């Protein structure tokens, strides 16, 4: 639902992900973070252009 909302507002819904990582999966966590960071890098800056 939130992704649809983002879409309505013109924020790419790819910018939001939900991943299940258990406490024993340290490796998986690092993997998820790495791939997501890469994806965002490809997408570029937040279109709102807010200096943060």
């Amino acid at each position, binding site marked *: 639902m939130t992704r649809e909302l983002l879409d309505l507002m013109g924020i790419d819904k790819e910018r939001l*992900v939900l991943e299940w990582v258990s406490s024993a999966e340290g490796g998986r966590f690092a993997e998820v973070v*790495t791939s997501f960071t890469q994806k965002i890098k490809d997408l570029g800056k937040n279109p709102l252009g807010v200096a943060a």
Partner: protein
Amino acid sequence: MAAEFEPKIIAFCCNWCAYAGADLAGVSRLQYPPNIRVIRVMCSGRISPDFVLKAFQMGADGVLVSG
């Protein structure tokens, strides 16, 4: 523009799952990008759509919800 774009990513992590996972990643000395700002929540069910919207409003480039 800077040589490479460094995004800001907010990660909402469940205390019992992903947050512990991140902890384990740290203990195991696994490398992951430094762009992530982790916010610990007691349960990923605590996260409302508004958290995500607020994050974007404050200038986040991406949001990761992890449970």
